């Protein structure tokens, strides 16, 4: 398999910085050649190597079916890898699963709550499952209910909660046993924009307060861009590129010109590639995307060239590049929010 591209940003956070800072402490998650094959035809994860340093937020970004949940399931000891190995906090996820389990908190993609129980009962039973003494549970429950602002609803049955409240309760449950590593699988799936924002606010506070390491998956590129210190873009079970969101986006050029059109794109793309101001050309299924030094300045030039090459432009736009553009560059497909 091709090695995932590592990108180093010149500004701000760099991979080297992170690695140097954490040389004394070990990496939180190390996966080597991780493979999960469900059946002969279903290869969910196809050889993933990742190293996640301590105290950072790492996002696995990819479309549905890319292998994100399978990755989380293997790292959280829910399922065993078909090949390769992974360690969390230095413990092998298969051979030392119990040591891994003691150190992690997890929220799953689906809402998983006993709806008959109250929020307080859900947290209390969870703490008991981990053998927390009563006094500890009581203190922790009070603290977490305050954090996720569910104090008023704590003694109501979960069945009466809104989707956002359930997610917040699940977040509290994931933190109940003071994990060193928190896994959030699509934490904002199915939430309205307002609740999505508030979930991330809690997570941001957590990171500041507790300094825990966090791995989350998402198919919302803005979430990865805003929340993560590092992003691994995953597609068809492989990490196609990895780096800080800043470094990933920076390589796309200053601006992105996106062109939708008809006609012979081959000649047009060749012309574009020869231009000095064009830094990247990505041809997707229905879109051509250019990374250029200055979008507004080069727009007219590009349109003229399209006419010369007999390519009809239906729509053309200039934007600041995003992780979505990075995704398109490495997979040739667009990452849609839906």
């Amino acid at each position, binding site marked *: 398999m091709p090695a995932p591209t590592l990108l180093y940003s010149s500004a701000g956070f760099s991979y080297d910085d992170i690695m140097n800072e954490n040389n004394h402490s070990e990496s939180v998650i190390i996966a080597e050649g991780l493979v999960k094959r469900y059946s002969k035809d279903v290869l969910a994860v196809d050889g993933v190597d990742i190293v996640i340093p301590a105290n950072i937020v790492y996002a696995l970004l990819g479309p549905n079916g890319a292998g994100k949940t399978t990755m989380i399931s293997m790292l959280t*000891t*829910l399922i*065993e890898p078909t090949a390769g190995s992974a360690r969390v906090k230095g413990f092998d996820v298969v051979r030392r699963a119990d040591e891994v389990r003691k150190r992690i908190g997890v929220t799953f993609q689906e809402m*998983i709550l006993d709806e008959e129980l109250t929020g307080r009962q859900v947290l209390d*039973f969870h703490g008991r499952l*981990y053998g927390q003494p009563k006094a500890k549970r009581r203190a922790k429950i009070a603290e977490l209910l305050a954090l996720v602002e569910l104090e008023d609803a704590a003694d109501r049955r979960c069945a009466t909660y809104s989707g956002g409240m359930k997610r917040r309760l699940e977040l509290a449950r994931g933190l109940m046993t003071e994990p060193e590593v928190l896994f959030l699988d699509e934490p904002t799936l199915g939430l309205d924009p307002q609740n999505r924002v508030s979930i991330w606010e809690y997570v941001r506070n957590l990171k500041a307060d507790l300094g825990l390491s966090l791995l989350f998956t998402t198919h919302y590129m803005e979430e990865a861009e805003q929340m993560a210190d590092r992003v691994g873009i995953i597609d068809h079970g492989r990490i196609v590129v990895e780096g800080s969101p800043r470094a990933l986006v920076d390589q796309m050029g200053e601006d992105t010109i996106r062109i939708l059109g008809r006609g012979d794109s081959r000649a047009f793309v060749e012309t574009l590639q020869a231009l000095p101001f064009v830094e990247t050309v990505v041809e997707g299924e229905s879109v051509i995307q250019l990374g250029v030094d200055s979008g507004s300045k080069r727009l007219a030039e590009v349109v003229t060239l399209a006419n010369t090459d007999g390519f009809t432009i239906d729509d053309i736009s200039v934007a600041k590049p995003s992780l979505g553009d990075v995704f398109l560059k490495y997979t040739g497909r667009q990452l849609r929010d839906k």
Partner: protein
Amino acid sequence: MRAAITIWHKHMTKLRLHPEEAVGLLIQPIMWVVLFGVGMRGLIGQGMGIEEEAYMAFMVPGIIALTALGAAIAGGVVWLSERLQGIVKEYLVAPIARLSILVGNAMSIVTKSVFQAVIIFIVGALMGAQVSLNPLGWLGGLVLVAGYGAGFAGIALAGASKSNDIGAYHMLIFLFNLPLLFLSNALYPLEMLPRWMEIGARLNPTSYVVDGLRQMVFENGAELAGGETLSLGLCFVVVAAFAVLGMGAAYMVFRKTVQ
């Protein structure tokens, strides 16, 4: 064990919060004794040439076994729905033994079975079955019910660990349910059965729990099972082996779902 007790306690809490289920657990065995028992004792009691009260004592252990089957099947559904909803994942990422998850579920099933058995003893006595006054007999009887409940809970949990929808689960369980009840001495004495059925009944753990109950809990239930009864020691050994085998089967099947 701590984890198993937590899971058991959670189930009991949910039961308390769900009065419908608790009432159902109470009503169902009463209906069995009253409706089925009264109907049968008129019909079969006379056919066998025994008193109606005596047939009651003969039959009540069979109803207890049947109710324990029902509790196990219902417990399997609880487990299956926890699996399908994903609640099981909460247990699976926790630092607890995989077996304790199953044991917690089996304990919930056994608790319900024993609770129902007590109800049936009482209703049976009210309906005229002569109950033994020896508390050790009662205790032994409840131990047998618990063991039998655990064994069948294991089969139900194995089935529920393997199937991926409620329909498939019920089909699978149905295959066990009927022969376990009818291919036994629960409803008719061993000696009245044709040879091939008698062999089947002797291989069936239900016969041992039913026979043990007749001997220990009811004054004259055992005499009615025919001259020859199964030895009490054998009853305990067979039921204990059944409990271990059932839970072992559940564990084997459950382990596979993790891979």
